[in-house]
């Protein structure tokens, strides 16, 4: 979807840094006072006109967070974060709440157009040409987008169309007002407030994010998507996403993100909760492209994210696919709690670290129900001075009879200054379960490179091609538009790492 119309040539002619999403939008913003305390939590809650129960929920989270210590077990290094030196709420000033997309601030629409995000709705009927700036794929189903700009959702497209099928797709702030019973029932039910340091912080100060509810038996007719944009200086982004797939429903959800290039580090601590009931399927794809910092490691986003899905129902399925190319530091373990019998969890990941990027990412699969199955495929690519760690847990409880896990972790090293690490944990308490794990580490073989060079590809192209082949198993899990973008991103991320 984003950048879909671009050709490889234009992508390769990008700026020196290679990060072409690094611009800043000049727009009038409203901030909460700097720092973090109970008043800020109250401020955010008041700004969002929240009911009392949610404010209490936030305050409880804040109280828990104050007692927690920042985790240090991940293989990442960074100077201590001053949690008081940041804005926890930043939103574009809105005169009145826009009733339709046409009323949204044109500056914002322009920003998203520049990022390649189509916020304008196209006519849905196949064969009818969409609005002018749409991607050149009018025959294809469009994508519904929720656009989150710093602390608020600025627009959500195709809401009416989706509502016809009973699908709720809106910002979580809206959902709190329109569907309080659903939010109250599920918020924090997968990632409780005290789950971990960053989840607790998020629970206290989350500002916006997407909410999705797919009713029983409905197959969502289009891809749903959220695009996260950090724009303001010295802010953190704390979004919260909640997706509920009721019985026999199906949804595919995409997530993208970018930020301006800055010398400062900005914190992004999101929480994503997924709930799949009987026979429901949720496919969650991420292309994470936060600003990674420069070659010297200055600036970049600290991406400390908690993502977890609960397969509550029998035969339910949650599939995570992630392409992690951005962020100075990534700390992220999208997980599945396989409670329902015969439920399925999947995790497909490509993580690239170049220059001084650090990534500690992986997954956790909790097998609780009978005959639960999980598949983990992780591809780590380290270049420059990047450090890349796969960290995962497969845990099988005594009652998960017939549970099955297969894990494959491969690491590719480009250059002798980088590191690739694999830390899988397997905990099995069930005799009839079967777990298989394998991991390999290698570099690009000379003969592969030679073969490509001999056919006229330059070294960078050759490496790009080989890396794409290495990551193919994961990329093919992405929805098509994302797969195209992800391939290009891999190439850009590795620029300057060879030769």
């Amino acid at each position: 979807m984003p950048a879909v119309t671009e050709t490889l040539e234009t992508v390769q002619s990008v700026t020196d840094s290679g990060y072409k999403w690094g611009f800043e939008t000049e727009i009038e913003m409203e901030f909460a006072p700097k720092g973090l305390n109970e008043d800020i939590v109250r401020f955010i809650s008041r700004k969002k006109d929240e009911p009392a129960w949610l404010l209490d929920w936030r305050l409880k989270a804040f109280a828990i967070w104050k007692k927690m210590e920042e985790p240090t077990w991940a293989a990442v290094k960074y100077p201590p974060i001053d949690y008081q030196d940041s804005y926890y709420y930043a939103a574009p000033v809105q005169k009145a709440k826009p009733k339709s997309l046409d009323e949204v601030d044109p500056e914002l629409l322009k920003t998203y157009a520049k990022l390649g995000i189509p916020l304008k709705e196209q006519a849905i009927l196949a064969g009818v040409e969409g609005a002018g700036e749409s991607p050149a794929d009018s025959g294809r189903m469009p994508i519904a987008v929720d656009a989150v700009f710093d602390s608020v959702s600025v627009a959500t497209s195709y809401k009416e169309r989706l509502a016809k099928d009973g699908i709720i797709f809106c910002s979580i702030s809206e959902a709190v007002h329109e569907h309080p019973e659903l939010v109250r029932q599920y918020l924090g039910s997968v990632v409780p407030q005290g789950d971990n340091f960053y989840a607790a912080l998020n629970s206290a100060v989350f500002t916006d994010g997407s909410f999705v509810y797919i009713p029983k038996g409905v197959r969502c007719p289009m891809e749903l998507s959220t695009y996260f944009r950090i724009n303001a200086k010295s802010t953190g982004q704390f979004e919260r996403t909640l997706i509920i797939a009721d019985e026999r429903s199906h949804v595919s959800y995409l997530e993208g993100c970018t930020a301006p290039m800055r010398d400062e580090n900005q914190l992004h601590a999101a929480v994503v909760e997924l709930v799949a009931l009987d026979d429901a399927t949720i496919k969650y794809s991420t292309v994470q492209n936060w600003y990674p910092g420069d070659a010297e490691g200055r600036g970049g986003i600290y991406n400390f994210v908690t993502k977890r899905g609960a397969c509550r129902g029998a035969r339910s399925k949650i599939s995570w696919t992630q392409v992690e190319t951005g962020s100075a530091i990534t700390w992220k373990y999208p997980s599945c709690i396989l409670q329902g019998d015969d439920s399925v969890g999947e995790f497909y990941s490509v993580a690239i670290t170049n220059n001084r990027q650090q990534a500690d990412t992986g997954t956790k699969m909790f097998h609780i129900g009978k005959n639960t199955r999980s598949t983990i495929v992780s591809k780590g690519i380290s270049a420059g001075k990047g450090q890349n760690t796969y960290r995962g847990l497969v845990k099988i409880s005594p009652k998960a009879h017939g549970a099955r896990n297969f894990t494959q972790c491969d690491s590719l090293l480009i250059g002798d200054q980088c590191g690739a690490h694999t830390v899988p944990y397997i905990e099995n308490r069930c005799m009839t379960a079967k777990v298989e794990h394998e991991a390999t580490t290698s570099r690009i073989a000379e003969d592969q490179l030679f073969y490509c060079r001999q056919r006229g590809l330059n070294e960078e192209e050759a490496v790009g091609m080989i890396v794409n082949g290495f990551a193919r198993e994961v990329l093919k899990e992405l929805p098509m538009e994302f797969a195209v973008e992800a391939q290009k991103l891999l190439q850009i991320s590795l620029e300057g790492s060879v030769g």
Partner: protein
Amino acid sequence: MTAVASTGAAAFLGRYEGLRTRLPGARVAWVEALRNGAAEAFRAQGFPTRRMEAWRYTDLASVAGAVFGEPLTGVEDATEIPAAAGPRAVFIDGRFRPDLSTLDALPYAADSLARVLPTLDGRIGTIARPAEQPMAALNTMLFEDGLVVDVPAGVAGGVLELLSLATDSERAPAYHPRHLVRLGAGASLTLLETAAGPQAARYLHNPVFEIEIAEGARLAHGRLQQEGREGVFLSTVYARVGAGGAYDNFTLNAGARLARNEIHVALTGPKAEAHMNGVQLVGDGQHADTTTTLDHAAPDCSSRQTYKTVLAGRSRGVFQGKIHVHQVAQKTDGYQMNQALLLSPEAEIDSKPQLEIYADDVKCSHGATVGELDADHLFFLRSRGIPEAQAKAILVEAFLTEAVEAVAEEPIRAALTRGVAGWWQRQGVAGGIEEA
């Protein structure tokens, strides 16, 4: 002596305070400094707890909470030990027993650590890392004895047995032998170590090995851990291998109520090799842990590891294995496999293989599998008239074969096969398999 009822780190630190003037090397300045440093490290770390990453699967609370006594010196017991087939060093409750040992006319030096300690300056404590491993700190603080072996350059040392026995004592002794093995350039030795004790005796055996293998030397180290079912065995091996040298370790981890077989190998010269294999046989009421780290600190080195765990009854098995490839260690070839077979619904296995790689021209992989006996295989054997228990025994043996066959040294392999057979028989009697 009066019984000291305190437990845990405080009890051991208290014992050190009480014994420091009487321990071997008490008046030797460097020994005293070594022990004091270790005491500080132990005080700082305390007994390992599950909050320490290296100990997340092995809980020492039962050890920290137990009262241990000191082994009595000079026991005139009639411990029945089999006749020695060749050179052998015997330790009873951690103390060297010259009367039971046969170390005459060897082409190398082998002696009691307590006897030669003053001559070991710069030799002891050079490879062990007490600051990172509380049990190694405890050992360094309190070691009373051990075996010191020095095989000069070029000498083929043959087979040496190291037999470590616990006595049946009411005192629940804790002992911390420190063994030092050094092979000169091109030397070789097969060290066959057996640790055993009476089934009902309570004791803590906490040995630390420091092994130095010079250029082109080879040490084959076979270890049969067959401690009594109430014993606790926490052992740490540190080995450093020079250019072109090789360290082969095979450990059968079968005895003790709680056993940890921790091995740290550093390949420090080009073309050094390590082969580490092991079998853990864990029966009802037992906990067995194998933890390895392999440091590839020089180019062109290779390492191979195969570990198999069989679990019966209510038991828990642990495998943690880390391969660390330093930036200089280009052309590293590292491989590690760990597999577990669960024979009982009450068994638990925790496995954590780990790769930490900072060099790019490497070939490193690890694999892990966990599962029960294959139903098809069992059916195949049963359909040919083989009774279920026997069919299971055949399949378990087949499962272990890969690790056992990797042992090149005949004496070690033979001892190992006997150890496996013995364990299997005991399981059969106890009915641990039938329950599955």
